[in-house]
Every structure is written in C-alpha cells, then in structure tokens.
C-alpha cells in the first residue's frame, strides 16, 4: 500500500505494477491506464458495457478469470492480464470467432480496418483448429446507404447499442440465442423497410465487415470514362479535415487543395465546394428564420441539413414537420442549382451532367435517392461517395497523397465564406445563422464568433442578444440527445427559437462515412478544430458576404425560382413499411362498412386503440359486425392529425368516437 501524508491513495496491482485508482469506470479502463492494451470487440466508452466478446478476460486474485470491462474496481485488487491460461483462452475465442466468420478477407471492403483480422494477427493465430461453421447468409443491400452482411458478424452487439443508446432508433437487435443468435431488424426485414435513418454510426462501430457503407465508386468511374458525360464534384466541409487520415495524416489536417488536385487527376471535369451551397443554405435558412422570428410563428425552427435527422423527424415527430426549415441541405441545393444553371451555361442536358458529391455521411446517399430530388426521373445528385470511397478511388488511381501539389476549386461554385466551412461541426450551422442574423439585425456591429455553440457537448444551449432581439439557440448532436430535447420542447419545459440537429455526435466530422480513428481518441474534436481554423483564414466569414451568391441573387434568382430550387416539403413516414393488418372481416358478402384505422406510433399515442375499442363495441351493439371489414395500417400520410380513421374511403382526421359514430350511423341507418 502506498501512502502519502494523511491521505491514503487507493491502488491496485496490474501485472505487478502498483496503479493508483482515479475513478476509472471499470477494470478495463484501469488496465489501459497502466499501458496494457487489452483486446476487445464490444467495449466502447460511450455506450453501455456489454461483456459479450470475452476478449478482455483477466485473472483477479481470489476471484478467478473475469471480463475486465464489466468488473468494478476494488482497492488492492491484484490483476494479471497475461497468464498462460488467459492467452490460450483469448486465442481460442478468436479461433471460434473465425470458425463462424465468412473469411473472404481478400475481397472484403473492411479488410484494411478489420479488428478481427488485426487481433488475429496480433495474437499470432496462424490456423483455426475448428471446423468452419458459417452458413452462407443472404446479404441485405436493400438500403441506399448501408450493406449488411450477417455472415461476417461477430455478435459484439456494438451496432445494436449505438443504434439504441446514441441514436434512440433501435432498428437492429439480437434475435434468437446461442449458436442461432443473429443481429437483425424486426422479423428479419430489409434495412430499407425499417426505421433505420441511414446515419451509419453502426457502420463506423462495426469491428468487421458486417455493416459497410454502400459503395458507388464504379458508377463514378463509369461516368468519368463516358465521354458524353460532364462530371462535376462537390466536396462537403467535413471531408477535407478527415480524408488525409487514410494517407497517414493527423485528424484535423486540412487537405482541401490536395483533394481538389487528386479529383482532377481522377478525371472529373469540375471540382466545386459544398461550402458554397452551405452559404446559400444560410441565406435561405436564416432569412426563413428571421421571417418566422419576426412573425413569431413556426418556432422553434429546426435545421434540415442532416438527412438522418429529417427521416427521424418524419418517422417520430409528424407534428413538428412544419417547424423544420423548408430548406434543402447544402448537398441538394448545390445539385439542383448545378442541374439548372450549369446545364444552361454548358448547354448540355441534365442526363449528361453528372453531379457527384463527396460526403462524410452514409445518409446523404439516401437523401440523394429521395424521389422529390429528381426531375423527370433524373436525380439532382447522381452519385454520393463517402470520404472513404474517395480515398479508395485515389489509391486505385495511384495518387501519391504526400507529393501531390494542392490545387484550387473551380469558380463560381468553389467560393465560400467561413460560415460555409464550419457546417461540418456540431454548432456550425447555428453559428452561421447567427452570423447572418447579426449582420441583418445589428449591421453596425456584426458579430462573427459565437463560441458558446461550439464544442463536443451533445446538447448546447445559449441566449444571444442581437440588438433588440433575444434569440434562444439550442444545438444538439446524436439523435438520442435530439429526442431528449424535442420531448422537453414539446412538453413546454424549455423554449428555443432555433434548434440545430445533427444525427452524429459532434456533427458531420463524425459522420458514418468518415475514417474510423484507431489511435487518436480526440479525432472528432481535432477535425472540428481544423474546420474552425480554416474558417479564421477566410476573406469573408458571413454567408451574406459571398460575392458570387450576391451576384447570383442579383442576376438570376427570383423568389419563385429560389423556392423551386432550394426548398422542399416533408411527409410523415411509417417507422416500418408493412402491409395493412386485417382486424376482422364479416361473413356477409356485401360489406356496408369498410373501416380502416391508423396504428402508427403517433395515432396510437393519441388514442387510436381506444377509438378502435369503442367502434368495435358499437358495431357489436348495432349488430353490423357481419357487414364490416376492419383493417389497420401502420402509419400514414396525415399522422400529424391523428388518430386517422377511414370509413368507406373517407378519411377523418383527429377522429373521436363521436365523429366515427356519426359517420357509421349515416351509412347503416
């Protein structure tokens, strides 16, 4: 026992080394503090402890072999992490995992980052003593964003917990048990049919290739090799501070110029910047906000740049859809502008202009595929690449990242202000709106830095005084945080004028299409710092000052045109797409009553079940059961006015039993 003065420091002994206890959460954290890197698949400090993979087994004197991640620390513990028994055990566990793993490693897209592969190598596994057991599993590539390959799953449950705990979505869970256990959506349905918001946080956390972004690399090559196509690329802000990590750069290092040069080498015709359309988004969105703020309507205004948040809102909060900014995201604003203006400037058809976007995000692939972002069957954004896909293309093209000379963007869509750059970090959109509002409301002393909305916290709130106006701002990242805040706002416990929501913790710099940091614990913050540093170097830092946008609005942008190109509408979406459920069908051939009730989450929370029960009792009372067919749907188009009840094709919104009874009486009397 080490003791200093009167204060006794509690300690434990890790592999013979006395280690002070300083409030570590569990034994694993303590062991890591003692510079022993215990292997693990299922331990992540930001989600709950699961203890499934058994890789972090250690020997605790007097207690035998325990998993370090789920063992609380006690003073004077004596721990051994490297006994013969433990080493053998770890190896055997890995071999068992490999025996039930689809080992198509050479063609697996995860190969260079696979934790199973890395650990097997580290543990010196050169052969698997067990019979290969993996049954061929069907790959689910129904989603535009994510490919699920269950044959590679090691059942660590990381995806399940990140989806449930960080995003509060819960699209995946572990079904069955023992040898039959598997990660799956509800009843094994396709990922595209369930409540998955495509954020890709599961992809980022998956240690193996069981969850991967859907690659669209070949489509880009095809377009480049097709001489009839003009290929233009837009690059999102968060990409420039992360892509370099694939080439050994530190997180946050800015590589805008190198990426631009590399894209030209790859063979694209024009390289533009999504930050330009981020400025455009701010002009539209901040104007929309100032209008709502002055009129005091549709507040709080929620941002709408994040497609995962938009789908989440459409599934969970139909009553708030009017509060979402009607602005399209910077990706979609860029593309609709490009397909409108560039086609005219270059005198080519929409079909021959291929707009490729490079995004830190898997959900952007889903966003680009939304039907409202197409004109006559031709998409505004033709192809979306994640940061990783662009890095792979650069490697395939044989680009030496270290040696390539930086180049600059093409104009005019390559010019941006600092406000467009910070979009990539949580708080950036909020700050950009405030910069714009400040220049409008206090033109004599405009403020550019709103540091109170920066940083890694999941929920940031502040009050900003701009002249006579007091604006209450909230910035959230992580959908579980968003849900928490929205519930408070709905309950009237908290009030804000504008709320920025990003689905990924820390914003787009931590998107599902970004590199997975292996050795840098603060990678996400470092990337955000890189963006704020870039912002400080910009000539203009308020989107309203972007001269190319000023020209665009002065020369060719009418209010109507802007509305058509830059705004959108939202619709409620069912969490799970599935056929209607037959509640009952009467025996009489001719059905006088064809009834349908919505059993979507919102309608149920507003009393759809009670309505059903009352109606069913009334049908029995009036003895018309045999003349009735009664079905239920799981979510519909007008859930914001739930409960929705349909009688012979006629929809009754906000239906009460009284309304339903009157309508039924009219038909059966």
């Amino acid at each position: 026992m080490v003791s200093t003065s009167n204060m006794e420091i509690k300690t434990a002994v890790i592999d013979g080394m006395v280690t002070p206890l300083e409030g570590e959460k569990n034994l694993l954290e303590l062991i890591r503090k003692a510079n022993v890197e215990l292997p693990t698949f299922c331990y992540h400090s930001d989600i709950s402890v699961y203890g499934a993979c058994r890789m972090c087994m250690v020997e605790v004197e007097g207690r035998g072999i325990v998993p370090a991640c789920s063992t609380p620390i006690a003073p004077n513990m004596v721990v051994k992490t490297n006994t013969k028994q433990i080493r053998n055990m770890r190896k055997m566990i890995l071999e068992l995992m490999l025996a039930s793993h689809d080992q198509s490693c050479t063609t697996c897209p995860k190969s260079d980052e696979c934790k199973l592969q890395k650990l097997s190598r580290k543990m010196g596994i050169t052969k698997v003593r067990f019979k290969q057991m993996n049954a061929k599993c069907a790959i689910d590539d129904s989603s535009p964003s994510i490919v699920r390959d269950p044959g590679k799953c090691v059942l660590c449950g990381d995806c399940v917990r990140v989806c449930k705990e960080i995003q509060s979505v819960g699209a995946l869970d572990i079904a069955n048990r023992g040898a039959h256990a598997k990660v799956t959506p509800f009843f094994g349905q396709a990922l595209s049919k369930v409540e998955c918001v495509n954020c890709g946080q599961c992809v980022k956390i998956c240690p193996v290739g069981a969850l991967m972004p859907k690659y669209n690399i070949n489509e880009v090559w095809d377009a480049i090799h097709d001489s009839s196509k003009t290929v233009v690329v837009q690059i999102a802000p968060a990409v420039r501070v992360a892509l370099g990590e694939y080439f050994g750069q530190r997180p946050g290092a800015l590589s805008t110029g190198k990426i631009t040069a590399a894209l030209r080498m790859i063979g694209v015709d024009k390289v533009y910047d999504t930050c330009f359309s981020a400025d455009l988004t701010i002009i539209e969105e901040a104007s929309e906000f100032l209008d709502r703020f002055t009129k005091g309507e549709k507040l709080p205004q929620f941002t709408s740049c994040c497609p995962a948040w938009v789908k989440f809102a459409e599934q969970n909060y139909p009553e708030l859809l009017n509060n979402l900014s009607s602005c399209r995201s910077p990706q979609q604003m860029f593309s609709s502008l490009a397909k409108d203006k560039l086609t005219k400037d270059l005198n080519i058809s929409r079909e021959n202009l291929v707009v490729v976007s490079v995004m830190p995000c898997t959900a952007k692939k889903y966003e680009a595929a939304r039907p409202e972002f197409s004109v006559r069957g031709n998409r505004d954004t033709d192809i979306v690449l994640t940061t990783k896909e662009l890095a792979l293309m650069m490697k395939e093209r044989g680009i030496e990242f270290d040696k390539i000379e930086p180049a600059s963007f093409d104009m005019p869509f390559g010019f941006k202000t600092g406000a467009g750059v910070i979009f990539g970090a949580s708080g950036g959109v909020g700050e950009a709106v405030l910069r714009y509002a400040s220049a409008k409301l206090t033109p004599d002393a405009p403020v550019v830095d709103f540091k109170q909305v920066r940083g890694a916290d999941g929920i940031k709130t502040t009050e900003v005084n701009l002249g006579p106006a007091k604006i209450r701002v909230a910035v959230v990242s992580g959908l579980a945080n968003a849900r928490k805040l929205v519930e408070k706002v709905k309950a009237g416990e908290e009030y804000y004028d504008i709320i920025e929501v990003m689905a990924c913790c820390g914003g787009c710099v931590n998107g599902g299409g970004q590199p997975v940091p292996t050795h840098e614990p603060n990678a996400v913050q470092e990337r955000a710092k890189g963006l704020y540093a870039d912002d400080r170097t910009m000539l203009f830092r308020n989107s309203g000052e972007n001269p190319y946008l000023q020209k665009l609005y002065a020369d060719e942008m009418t209010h109507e045109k802007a509305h058509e190109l830059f705004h959108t509408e939202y619709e409620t979406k069912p969490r799970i797409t599935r056929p209607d459920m037959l509640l009952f069908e009467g025996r009489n051939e001719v059905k006088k009553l064809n009834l349908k009730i919505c059993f979507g989450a919102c309608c149920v929370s507003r009393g759809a079940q009670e309505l059903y029960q009352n109606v069913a009792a009334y049908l029995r009372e009036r003895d018309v059961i045999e003349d009735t067919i009664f079905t239920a749907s799981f979510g519909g188009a007008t859930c914001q006015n739930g409960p929705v009840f349909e009688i012979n094709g006629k929809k009754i919104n906000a239906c009460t039993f009284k309304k339903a009874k009157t309508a039924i009486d009219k038909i059966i009397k």
Partner: protein
Amino acid sequence: MTDKALVKFDRVCEILDKHGRNPHMLIKILQEIQEEYKYLPEEIMMYIATALDISPAFAYGVATFYSHFTLQPKGKNIIKVCDGTACHVKKSEEIINALESKLGLSKEKHTTDDTLFTLETVACLGACGIAPVVVLNDEVHGAMNKEKVISLIDKIKAEELANAQS
C-alpha cells in the same frame, strides 16, 4: 370466424390495457397474446411494440430468445414428445418417427397442413419414472409406444370429424 377474430384483437387491447401498456411487462404480455393466437403473429408483434413504445426489433429479440414463444402458427392439438435421456433410452425416437410419418411431418415441418396437429420434441419433462412420455394438450401419457400414440391421434381425428359433421 368473424366473432372470433374480433374477439382476438379485442383481447390484444385488453391484455395491453391490463398491464398498463407498460413496456416492462413485455414478456407477460407476449405470453398472454400467445395464449390467444397460439403463436405470435408479426403484425400483432408490430402493434404491441407500437403500443408499448418500444422498438419492434427489440420485441422481436425478446420473442425469439425464449423457446416458449413461437412465431409460427401452431396446430389445434399440441403433441410434445420427451426426448430426454430416460425417454430416449426407452425408444422415444420410434414414437417421434411414427408420429412424423402418420402426420406427414418432418424435422423442419412441425405443423400439419390442416393445422390440426403440432409435434414438438422437448428435453426432459421430469417424468422419467413413466418414460417414454408424451404430453398431448397438457395431458401426460406415460409408458407410451408407437401403437398407443397412434391410437391417441386416431381418437382426436375421429372427434374432430364428428365435430365438423355435427
């Protein structure tokens, strides 16, 4: 059929209400729903998850974890043949084979097309003294053999036929 179906979904509502639509009562709710339907239909599971405000994938995970729950429709008569050690030694396998060929079932197919019978193999029922044991609709039959079990099936079939004709 009408009244029955109606009663069934009404029972779902009743069961949910009885447990205060409390997500912590999920297992109890699923048990009672299974008593009504003899299995857990997908759309009812979807409705339960919605009413309890839990993720449907989670409800599916719970329902598939416990072997008590079944997601496949079961027959009207449930035959459980014990294949624990004692029963196995006393030739329970012969009984299983006889039932499978009599009912047109297999290791993969457990329920007859007319949904009259479901055959299940279970581990020890704790009645090793009267092995081999067959449980037919919660009634325990000890010291069974091929002939005895087939005559039990024939008896039920005859009853069903009589019921259908009356």
